[in-house]
């Protein structure tokens, strides 16, 4: 948990197990570039080259091409990028609030990430105070064991507009006149989808944060209590700062999930009604596979990549500067 000063980066880096294989964590003097180094790094580097670097460069090149069949057929320059920025279903800043796939991803990033961490923390903190903690955590964790597609199908039944099919409308039926069309109303659909996503991820956050809470030495808490701190102060002044690192790691993981979010949207709404629940990754699929516009799909992938770079930069910096949990 020790936060290392900048001067100690290298020394701490050695202890960091999560550092990427190619990270320069271990200082390498010129003479140490011997066979052993090549032997250890070679296979990984080769796999990375084939499965990561080559596809990435291919995708970037394809984004400037018509890209029929996913092959290089005709150079089109920036046409796909310009087209996307003018595509109201991708990004529309002319209205307030804005709309479009990118904006929906922003909504997901804020509300999904925020609520998953908040609820995860609440469950982890409260559950740690009762005897049947493991049961609570198991129940909350259960949705994690469901494949995202199956999860989406479950929520399809929850959100169905007719009270005899839709669980939510069946519950609300006595209190409302007429049913609520959760997935059929552009004003509600994103909130409904995000809620389903949160349900599926809270368990993950709970488990991570619960482990982090357990790692707080009891002496620290006892010392605080001895000094007269109340539970509220202990939570905000001791616990929260001490789990801030796991929270930030969690946030990064969730943000990456948001940017590549696809299956929930595909199964629950297919981007509808209209185009109101599309997200970036869904648009990428939609343009590439059913639309056959692989060049445009590649351009969307590049935009996703650009959005991910700052998140990854933050993440790597975090990994390098300190140990996690």
């Amino acid at each position, binding site marked *: 948990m020790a936060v290392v000063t900048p001067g100690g980066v290298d020394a701490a880096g050695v202890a960091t197990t999560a550092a990427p294989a190619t990270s320069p964590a271990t200082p390498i003097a010129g003479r140490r570039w011997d066979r052993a180094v090549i032997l250890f790094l070679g296979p990984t580097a080769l796999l990375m080259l084939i499965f990561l670097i080559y*596809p990435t460069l291919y995708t970037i090149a394809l984004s400037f091409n018509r890209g029929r069949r996913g092959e290089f057929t005709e150079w089109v320059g920036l046409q796909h990028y310009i087209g996307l920025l003018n595509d109201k*279903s991708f990004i529309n800043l002319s209205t307030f609030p804005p709309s479009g796939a990118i904006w929906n991803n922003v909504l997901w990033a804020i509300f999904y990430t925020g609520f998953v961490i908040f609820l995860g923390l609440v469950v982890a903190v409260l559950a740690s105070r009762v005897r049947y903690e493991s049961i609570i955590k198991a129940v909350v964790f259960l949705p994690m064991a469901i494949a995202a597609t199956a999860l989406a199908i479950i929520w399809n039944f929850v959100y169905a507009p007719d009270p005899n099919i839709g669980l939510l409308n069946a519950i609300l039926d006595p209190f409302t006149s007429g049913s609520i069309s959760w997935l059929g109303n552009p004003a509600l659909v994103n909130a409904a989808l995000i809620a389903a996503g949160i349900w599926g991820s809270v368990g993950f956050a709970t488990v991570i944060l619960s482990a982090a809470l357990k790692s707080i030495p009891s002496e620290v808490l006892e010392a605080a209590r001895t000094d007269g701190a109340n539970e509220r102060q202990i939570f905000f002044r001791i616990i929260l700062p001490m789990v801030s690192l796991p929270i930030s790691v969690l946030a990064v993981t969730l943000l990456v999930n948001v940017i590549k979010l696809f299956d929930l949207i595909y199964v629950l709404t297919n981007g*509808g009604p209209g185009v109101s629940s599309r997200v970036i990754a869904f648009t990428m699929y939609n343009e590439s596979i059913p639309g056959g516009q692989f060049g445009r799909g590649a351009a969307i992938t*590049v935009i996703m990549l650009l959005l991910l770079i700052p998140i990854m930069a933050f993440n790597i910096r975090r990994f390098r500067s300190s140990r996690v949990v």
Partner: protein
Amino acid sequence: MTRTLRFPAILLSAAFIAAACSGGGGGSSSAPAASEPGASASGGASGGPVTSGAAGEINVLSLWGGSEEEAFKKVLADFTAKTGWGVKYEADRQTYSTTLQSRITGGNPPDIAIIPGIGFLRRFAKDGSLKKISDLGVDASTLTQDYPEGFLAAGTVDGELYALPAKYNNKGTMWFRPDVYKAANVTAPKTWDEYKAMLETTKDKPGAMALGAKDDWNLTDWFESIYIRQSGVDAYDKLFSKDGDWSDPSVQKTVDTMLEVINDKYVVGGITAAVGRAWTDAIAQVFGPTPKAGTFYEGGFVGGIATGQTNKDLKIGETIDWYPFPTLGNTEDVTTFGGDVVGALTESEGAKAFVQYLITPEANKVWASTGAIVSPHKGVGTDAYPNDLVVREAQSLQSAAKIRYDGSDLLPAGIQGEQMGQALQRAIAGEKVDWADFQTRVKAAWDAE
């Protein structure tokens, strides 16, 4: 040193994510990074049985499941018995386009593929993936005697026939519950005005019409059925071709006509609920044990779903039946239809044998006898079908003066942004659709084909 090497490390991590997300690349579809909500969404292709034959084996990829699959397997068994070719059958309903696309890109296409949309067909034909029917030992010019002209035209790209009609369904079928109509004392309407009067009468007994517009193709079918009857076949042909003009007033006129019946007054549960409702749930609203509405519009396949899955107690003529889509202005006997076509992706001997087998009346009779499909082959008489609903559907298609392929399936696949059905979802919710904007995007997609 730490500084200089940091950037590559960032790039690598980012590259990892990007590679995990990119689907287009080298043929392999996406392999999601190992983490949680959002693992894979594969639809699962089901490997079918292999009928072994003396001559060899062909690969057939289709999107049919359930009764359609059972029926097609009977055809495949007959093919093996007659020609000696074995068949390895693969069906993938949910991710069909992904599977077919990646098999073509990966250099491992099936010999024979069932192709659902014509926009899709044009793409594979222009790619060179689909083989010309004339190169498969079939004289394409003789096929006009056996198949309806409107269907062959749909399989033709740049003057060359690339796919054969496999099965079709009338999309001019208005499904209803005779018992509900009887109780409300109405008869099957023939004209649009009579149709509206019927909706008015049945709207509280117990409800006028069910709609499941979450599946937006239900709305495109509504649009097409009205457009072809209101503006005529020639206008229809033009609208769904490269020369089409969606900013033409006839488009908005059709939408306005749609809104005369698709509105909160007649659709049970209201429009917003309908936009969130799956179309099969709408079928259940009409043909379930206790009907909530009397009428549901969709193609001829509704009959099979309603009697086979929704409610096995339905009795033809008493609790389920259909009448032709009401006439509007244009009095010509026209209808739209939906259908799948069969194309060959290799020129193997087995593929040739299959295509040659498929155009025989015998093959189509085997198929028709299952009741799962209506055969477009003119050599199949109405006596080949097992029940009255299908017989009448087949008759209506054969007797129609002109039939036209489902228009939304003719549009190019690569329209950027909002598609036709999605625009209609907004239209029925009361929004104004900018058809001139849609026209710009459709035109761009046509030009890019």
